[in-house]
């Protein structure tokens, strides 16, 4: 199990390794159960030993830390090749925010957000960065402000995240294999995979699916002459591994508005920014996405 664990840490996106690791995990649990059943009396005596309690407490604390993943733990896990929060490196500098995402040793995605003139370090705006597929479905949140009002302040991202979570649950209920490129989310296109790896580091770039990197940013309480509070703004860029670009600038798309669709369901749409907006447009000076792809020669 230790071997497969280390292997899974190093090798990204390998369902075989994860499967092997899960199998050894189940075997390990079964062996522990048998061990406890066969040695119940002597094991009971160990509970009187303080070291056992100390080790148990330490294990629980470490488990909680690795589950919550504060920054130092993230840094350690970031060395792994697996997708997940573990791969994120987010850092705030004087000039702005730098976000690195390394889903594979051969693929490094960096998002360099330069703060604009109205960005305040003391009272920073709420920010979310996520990936969407061509069917406009959330596939992975890369970063979201950890404030309690983040979902309220970033309604478009929150709506997309909720939709993804619901679709995932529904697919799980239907027994859909989430690791395959399936039509479970959209129901209309092939952009239905739940696995971000299918978009970011596809096996074949010829059949790769373009995806979007999205940013939603909102400064709480920022009125203008014509708006009581400027809504969040959304920026995006499309990444197509079939047509690789090293540098791409994210562009302002618009602001979200809640409305009802033809079926009467609430949804969020994006509207073009108009002359009512002011300082919100200056929160971000520029957002540059760079992708380093290591290709085999």
């Amino acid at each position, binding site marked *: 199990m230790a071997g497969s664990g280390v292997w899974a840490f190093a090798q990204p996106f390998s369902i075989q390794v994860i499967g092997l690791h899960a199998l050894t995990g189940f075997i390990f649990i079964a062996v522990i159960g048998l061990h406890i059943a066969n040695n119940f009396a002597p094991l009971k005596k160990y509970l009187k030993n303080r070291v056992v309690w100390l080790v148990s407490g330490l294990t629980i604390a470490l488990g909680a830390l690795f589950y919550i993943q504060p920054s130092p733990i993230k840094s350690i896990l970031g060395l792994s090749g697996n997708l997940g929060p573990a791969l994120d490196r987010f850092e705030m500098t004087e000039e702005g925010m730098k976000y690195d995402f390394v889903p594979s040793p051969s693929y490094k995605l960096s998002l360099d957000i330069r703060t604009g003139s109205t960005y305040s370090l003391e009272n920073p705006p709420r920010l979310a960065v996520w990936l969407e597929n061509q069917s406009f479905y959330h596939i992975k949140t890369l970063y979201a402000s950890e404030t309690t009002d983040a979902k309220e302040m970033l309604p478009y991202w929150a709506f997309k995240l909720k939709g993804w979570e619901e679709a995932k649950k529904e697919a799980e209920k239907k027994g859909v294999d989430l690791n395959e490129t399936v039509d479970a989310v959209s129901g209309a296109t092939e952009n239905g995979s739940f696995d971000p790896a299918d978009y970011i580091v596809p096996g074949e770039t010829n059949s790769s699916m373009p995806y979007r990197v999205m940013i939603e940013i909102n400064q709480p309480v920022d009125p203008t002459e014509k708006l009581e509070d400027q809504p969040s703004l959304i920026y995006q860029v499309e990444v197509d591994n079939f047509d690789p670009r090293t540098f791409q600038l994210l*562009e302002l798309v618009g602001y979200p508005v809640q409305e009802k669709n033809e079926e009467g369901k609430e949804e969020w*749409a*994006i*509207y073009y920014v*108009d002359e009512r907006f002011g300082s919100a447009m200056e929160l971000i000076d520029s957002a540059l996405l760079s992708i380093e792809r290591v290709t085999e020669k």
Partner: protein
Amino acid sequence: MKDKKSSTADRRNFLQSGMFGAAGLGLAVSTSSSVVMAESDKATIKREVTNEVDVLVVGGGTAGVIAAIQAGRAGAKTLLVERNFQLGGATTTGGVAFPGLFDAWGKQVIAGIGWELVKESVELDGGKFPNFAKVPRSHWMNQVHVNQFVYALLAEEKCREAEVELAYYEFPEAVVKTDAGWQVDCIGFGTRRQVNCKQIIDCTGGAEVVGLLGFERLREEERQPGSYLFQLGGSHNPASKQLHRLYVHGADSTNSRTATLANLTGRKSILAKVRKDKKRLMHLQPETGFRESYRIKGETLITVQDYTSGKLFDDAVSHAFYPVDLHTKTGVRPKPLKRGIVPSIPLGALVPKGSRNLIVAGRCVSSDRLANSGLRVQASCMGMGQAAAAAATLAVQGNTTPSEVPLAQIHGLLKKHGAIIPGKA
């Protein structure tokens, strides 16, 4: 033989059967207008006919209709020759009844007579427009769904109101230069027409008149597929959603023989699908919609770089807006234009190189293949149609050729008729 009374009673019964009420209405209309037709029959049954006009518009499709209306409204005596049986082309006969794109980045970029026709079609049909303030998830979401039947009727009405003479089922077979302009010999079934005109606007899609005159045209070895539209299963509800689409690879609108082949291929496949799916065929368009055939080599050639960079040409007369949208055997992967980009169409791209008194509008616009894949769409063609007609009409009035009409005059006339001039908004 039935007497008059029983015939009237039969007709009443026919009209009373709700299912065929609409057909009955058509019968009633034709019955009441037959008196007028009988009077004009004397002229129309003549095999040979001659027209003296200022402007001849060849092709009554997306661009041609708008060109004819603009020329007529601007005071030119105009004749529109159309090889088919109705106006509208791709929008109506092809069934691509969702013209676009009139807007870009939250603003209208193409207006004028094309927009007027589309808007009235939607309003008369009780339809609705996309919300142009909303960022479309995909470009096609801002296409305007129209009822193809209403559109064809309104197009005809607007032509009549602009005093445009319509000649259906006819097509030019020969064009000769004359001192006053052109002599164009058209042929239809049972009729021959000699048109003496000062200006020709070629809106045939494949620049057929330009070809007859021997000016250079561009054509790819392999063309984009055509689309044959139909509805299988559920009923066809016009202007509500798109019809089913069959890609007809190799579809070629070069001549009647190639068009026939495309239609035969399309219909054969649709029949096979009806048998396979065991669903009712609820709607079938009269012919294949063609995406690509010939393009002219104009005084200016719009390259894909010009298009994707939104180059504002010095002699820009109209906007265009659509992704680079090349359909191939493996499908289509539209490449949207970058934010803020709105391409323009120069007058020079509508004028065949070295020609005089001749101008084109529509998908045959002088452009490279990739630029053309974005330029060929309906709203852009409507904009071109209006611009070409403005130039041709002013050329008639100034006794010159379209490319020599002062640009300010063209802009002025276009603006007067509601068009949006690139760089002047």
